């Protein structure tokens, strides 16, 4: 079967990121993406989400802080 359904295409998109697709699956996915705008959007948006997440992990100060009480508790724990 050269044609795959959306559910499988989405699965293949994930696997493609890890280069885990066989040559046959690569062709199946390409063909599916050629004819399916929804899955094309999924593939593009999914890549974007992963990029955004990486960036989020590298981001610096977002203003979140421990309270003074928490900090005092940590110091106290260290002194015990």
């Amino acid at each position: 079967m050269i044609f795959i359904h959306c559910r499988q295409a989405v699965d293949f998109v994930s696997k493609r990121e890890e280069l885990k697709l066989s040559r046959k699956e690569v062709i199946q996915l390409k063909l599916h993406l050629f004819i399916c705008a929804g899955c094309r959007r999924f593939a593009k948006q999914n890549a974007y989400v992963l990029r955004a997440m990486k960036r989020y992990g590298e981001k610096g100060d977002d203003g979140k802080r421990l309270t003074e009480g928490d900090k005092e508790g940590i110091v106290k724990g260290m002194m015990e």
Partner: protein
Amino acid sequence: MEETVKSQAEASQWVYDYSDMLYRYALQRVRSAETAKDLVQDTFLSAWRNYEGYRGEASVKSWLFVILKRKLIDYYRRVAGTVTEALDVDDAGEARFFNRSDHWLRSALPAVWREDEESSLEKSEFYAVLDGCKRKLKEVQSAVFTMKYMEDLDSDEICKVLDLSPSNYWVLLHRAKVQLRACLEMNWFMR
């Protein structure tokens, strides 16, 4: 006596200088603020107890981060320990996105996003939504996803560290991706 006073001053200095930094790092990577706080506390305790082991080879900051990262791995491992059975891609996790003939449900079909993708990356509100979406994942999905895409670890290594079968790993990671995209679409790009 003087020794103790000096130590406490140093401990306070460490906590004052680095705890918020470590806390933010942990908070992005675990489910609850409480867990993040505990990990930071454990990090300082370990560091303090092994003070002898630290000989100023690295900066205090990078030494603390090394310890925190080790604590995080322990946390991921604990969370992954809850997965004891084989997961099935066709389980309910994804069923709400596809119909019986494996096409997108109308409600789940990826939309043409209204909000600009690149400029979103510059907005702190966007990251707040992203963070919220990540927190909606199951804890174990979030752990796998974090290791892969925030810590940038290799898949084989993640399976090994978490003692997950490759197929369970794939199911968890895949579900996390599908859900994150859908959540961002709903709460940011098409809100």
